[in-house]
């Protein structure tokens, strides 16, 4: 292993709201090698999107602010770049697909204009060439009748088609790093399968590294080399994919895996992790999962250390600390 393509070190991003500081990303570190895929899974509100927006330097400021840490991309700390330098990286070397396609599609512009803008800006194509490439990209992501539908507005597309337009936009500059934030959440499975194939294909063809944010453990099982599980702004467990599924160490990961409906088994009620998602403005002093954890005990009122529980497999839970010292 050489220098990782992306190395996130002790990243801290907060939002300052009327209710106080929300530590959306609280001391998050991970590495991503070129061509590898990291899956990030976790509760809604756990900080997955804020992590990726921090990497892209797209945190709305105010109310948000990146408070500390480093985002080393090819050895260069993105947090130290000027806005202009960052714009040259965004969309070209690092591209992002958002959870909500409407948030990054302009409802008043035809699809054609939104696609050609990027390739004109980053690839220096002229209008005609940019339009040709845009149609190609739409065909690549499976928009039927692309040459005609390219002149439609976003609202004329179904949710799934909009997501594919987003992917076409992201892929149009052959990025080194693709951050896909819930890219298949709104899609049905055959299209999900095609889009995941598309991402796999791009990854293999261009050696693109991928951060795949998803709540679907099924998707990471088939896509990711490594998985990081986030809860309340922290990575609570990270491991090679096989290891995470075979030996989940953190009670939250264990709960997530148990709560998935199993198509082969009929049950009246699903296992559910009890309680409410954490109020990020009022986190408990120790382990943030404690109010929902079946194993919570006295030491959990202190923040748990992150310890190794296997090869490249780390977990932040006192149970793991105890079993480690016992072993």
């Amino acid at each position, binding site marked *: 292993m050489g220098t990782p393509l992306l190395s996130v070190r002790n990243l801290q991003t907060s939002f300052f*709201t009327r209710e106080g500081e929300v530590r959306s990303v609280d001391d998050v570190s991970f590495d991503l090698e070129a061509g590898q895929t990291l899956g990030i*899974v976790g*509760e*809604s*509100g*756990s900080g997955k*999107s804020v992590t990726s927006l921090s990497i892209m330097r797209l945190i709305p400021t105010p109310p948000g602010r990146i408070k500390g840490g480093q985002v080393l991309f090819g050895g260069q700390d993105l947090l130290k770049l000027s806005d202009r330098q960052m714009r040259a990286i965004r969309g070209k070397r690092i591209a992002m697909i958002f*959870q*909500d396609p*409407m*948030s990054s599609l302009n409802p008043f512009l035809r699809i054609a204009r939104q696609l050609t803008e990027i390739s004109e800006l980053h690839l220096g194509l002229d209008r005609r060439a940019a339009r040709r490439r845009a149609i190609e990209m739409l065909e690549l992501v*499976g*928009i*039927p*009748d692309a040459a005609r*539908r390219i002149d439609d507005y976003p609202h004329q597309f*179904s*949710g*799934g*088609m909009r997501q594919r337009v987003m992917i076409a936009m992201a892929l149009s500059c052959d990025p080194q790093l693709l951050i896909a934030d*819930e890219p298949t*959440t*709104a*899609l*049905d*499975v*055959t*299209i*999900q*399968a*095609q889009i*995941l*194939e598309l991402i796999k294909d791009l990854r293999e063809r261009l050696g693109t590294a991928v951060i795949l944010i998803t*709540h*679907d*453990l*099924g*998707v990471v*099982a*088939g896509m990711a080399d490594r998985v990081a599980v986030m809860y309340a702004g922290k990575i609570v467990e990270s491991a090679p*994919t*096989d290891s995470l*599924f075979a030996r989940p160490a953190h009670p939250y990961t264990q*709960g*997530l895996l148990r*709560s*998935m*409906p*199993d*198509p082969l088994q*009929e*049950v009246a*009620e*699903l*296992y*559910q*992790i009890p309680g*409410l*998602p954490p*109020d990020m403005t009022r986190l408990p002093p120790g382990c943030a999962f404690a109010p929902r954890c079946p194993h919570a005990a006295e030491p959990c009122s202190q923040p748990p250390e992150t310890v190794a529980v296997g090869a490249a497999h780390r977990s932040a839970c006192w149970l793991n600390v105890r079993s480690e010292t016992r072993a």
Partner: protein
Amino acid sequence: MPENVSSLIAVRDVKVHFPLDSVGSLGRLLGRPPARVVKAIDGVTLDIQPGKTLGLVGESGCGKSTLGRAILQLVRPTAGRIFFKGTELTGLNARQLQQMRRRMQMVFQDPYASLNPRMTVGDIIAEPIEIFEPLRGEALRRRVQELMRTVSLNPAFVKRYPHEFSGGQRQRIGIARALAVGPEFIVADEPIAALDVSIQAQILNLLSQLRRELGLTTLFISHDLRAVRHISDRVAVMYLGKLVEVADSHEIYRRPLHPYTQALISAVPVPDPAVEKTRRRIVLTGDVPSPINPPTGCRFHTRCPYAQERCRAEEPPLVDTGGGHQAACFLLEEVSSGGAARDSAA
């Protein structure tokens, strides 16, 4: 009247066509039809029994949301009839329809677009209650907080605005709003798509519980076949504006008859890396055809591994193959023996 009077919802040969090109006032005057239409729903007949949940699955853009919206009369069908407990909704005027609205509610697909950004969560949930009920002040506030707890939202968030929540939290607000006036029927359009799995399990359990306790009837639209399998009594599979298969949910997973349903089920990701590495998927080739000019004959023929000459010319009807298991395919025998699909499975 629909022949099946026991149904809470009865949909009879409904079509929803959207004009693509504006006809112009002269053309409209002359009764000239628009040159091109999107056939979002193109002849759907369907029943939902009281207290039951029907799962609706299918390709993106196939018309699931449009069907849900047509049932609630949020879009008026181009043709066909829709009944709610025997009342023909398609025959009601705007005022009569407004009275029906509190009995039928919708949870929307897009939790971002469907919440007013300038209203607090409390006001969003209270709005339908204020329209339909005399509840005000402290009693209203208590009802809102109760609803927030029902959908696993912290009632302390009552004064916050939608943008202060993550996607999953926003979807819960939408569910609370839909449940606020105690509807008999809800269309839940991708209600759990934006939720992480631990909360999906809670919401699925919640919907099951609501069905048990309130006898709530649900049309559950989702691309998550695992969730649909879990929550639904029956499942309807849609392709390009038509139903291709309808059956009881355990039956459709155990014995899918239509080639499209088989492909759908085989594409569901399994949370087990070992299974994911070795499993054989039926990979559908070809593009999703446009609903503007849907393929002739069986609409699935352009992607179907079994397609034959006849499939290009004739449209297979949705027929009962026994025990309420309906499918629309000419080659059910061959498909269930699995020849062609297995050969072409990746």
